[in-house]
């Protein structure tokens, strides 16, 4: 099994790559950018993608850097999942990203797959987009005309669809400093390892009170999306009360809490006019149910990591 014929070009510099994309966009040529290739090459082998030209940016060292700036992290688009997994700034500062990397594909794929490639690909069942959405990440995009930055929320559009124009490249993802209470949970398809549903929760805590919650889910709609939890409902619970409510895992967790999460999910999907994804692996309603369960598990794990003194409000 191999791809349809294509012409191959390797970019020697970012400026060169942008010039080539600019020329191709002007001429209307069917060019695809190749980074790690762990999503694109399988699609090409199945002839689901048949670009006339591949522009390989894999050797552009300037896009591989991971740089800390205060608590904020700027991740070069060509940083691989393996690079992130081996970076203590990720594992210590962003445990939700570390969670996702642990369950994302397999070690060989993580050695090639890149952060920028994953975002530009726009797969509705990818692991990193919900995590980066919940972490308020921003995407830096370059073209020959210049550089722009867009919130990931506005970058993701739909199934394999993003805000990226034909003459543009993702060059970096910036993740602002985030509270310690964060986690990602997914229900994986056993063969593909892709999430049938996945959820990331980031929780902000002050003293014994929950002051903010950000939840994003993947795998159930044309794009990863954020859901708004009724803050009043969460704020009425103290951290330790919620911890206690979630302590027994799936056997408990509270029907009330499950109903709240499922309701918030359905409201977010209705507001976006999104139909749940459905295929031979899982129906739409089952995916939505799974997403609510994953959100609850992520909430429990995020709470266990949150900077709140245990038993502070007994």
């Amino acid at each position: 099994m191999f791809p349809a014929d294509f012409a191959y070009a390797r970019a020697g510099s970012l400026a060169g790559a942008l010039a080539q994309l600019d020329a191709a966009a002007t001429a209307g040529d069917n060019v695809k950018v190749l980074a790690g290739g762990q999503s694109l090459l399988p699609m090409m082998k199945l002839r689901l993608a048949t670009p006339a030209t591949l522009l390989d940016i894999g050797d552009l060292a300037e896009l591989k850097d991971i740089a800390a700036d205060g608590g904020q992290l700027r991740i070069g688009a060509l940083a691989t999942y393996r690079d992130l997994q081996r970076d203590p700034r990720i594992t210590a500062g962003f445990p939700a990203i570390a969670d996702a990397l642990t369950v994302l594909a397999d070690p060989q794929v993580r050695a090639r797959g890149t952060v920028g490639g994953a975002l530009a690909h726009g797969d509705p069942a990818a692991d990193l987009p919900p995590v980066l959405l919940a972490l308020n990440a921003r995407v830096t995009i370059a073209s020959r005309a210049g550089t722009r930055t867009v919130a990931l929320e506005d970058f993701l559009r739909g199934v394999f669809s993003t805000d990226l124009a034909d003459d543009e490249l993702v060059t970096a993802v910036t993740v602002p400093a985030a509270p310690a209470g964060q986690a990602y949970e997914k229900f994986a398809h056993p063969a593909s390892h892709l999430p049938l549903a996945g959820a990331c929760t980031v929780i902000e805590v002050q003293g014994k009170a929950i002051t903010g919650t950000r939840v994003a889910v993947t795998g159930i709609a044309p794009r990863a999306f954020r859901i708004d939890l009724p803050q009043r409902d969460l704020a009425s619970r103290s951290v330790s009360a919620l911890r206690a409510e979630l302590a027994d895992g799936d056997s408990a967790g509270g029907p009330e809490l499950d109903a709240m999460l499922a309701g918030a999910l359905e409201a977010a999907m209705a507001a976006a006019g999104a139909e749940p994804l459905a295929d031979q692996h899982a129906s739409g309603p089952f995916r939505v149910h799974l997403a609510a369960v994953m959100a609850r598990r992520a909430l429990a794990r995020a709470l266990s990591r949150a900077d709140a003194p245990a038993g502070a409000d007994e």
Partner: protein
Amino acid sequence: MPDVDVDVDVTVNGVPRRARVPARTLLVHFLRDNLRLTGTHVGCDTTQCGACTVALDGVAVKSCTVLAAQASGHEVTTIESLAPDLAEITARGGTLAAAGSRAAGREPPASPEPVSLHPVQRAFWRHHGLQCGYCTPGMVMMIRQLLADNPDPTDAEVRHALAGNICRCTGYQNIVAAALDAAAELRGA
């Protein structure tokens, strides 16, 4: 029609190799068909089974999901390089056990364990870490990567590291035992 061929200039097992191939040539086919290094297997061909695992610039990857063109200018290590004497001897028609004793420069030992094998390969031999053997090259290459990253893995860590390697004989128990034993040997434990 634009040119769909590409020059591939790659170092494989320390030897510079060059060929002009269609750009769509996958690294695994380049290794097997152009270089006749058939130790790297094609299993699922869909990035799932790991039989095609090789090291690219020292890191284990699935060579069915890398273009030969992407490897140009880089270094590839295949299963053949782990026991180079053995590869040379078996290519001349010698046997595995004979190869082991010849590499050690002595008469065939009472135990047939081939001494010239890589520690991971020897551990597979001791634990019978294979049944049909089809997945074995990929398993060995991935375990080699695991032990480079984590010299003292737990049973669970070995299994997690092998998430991308499928044994359809389902002989995982002995594969995991071999990995743990090889880890101990390499640590000098």
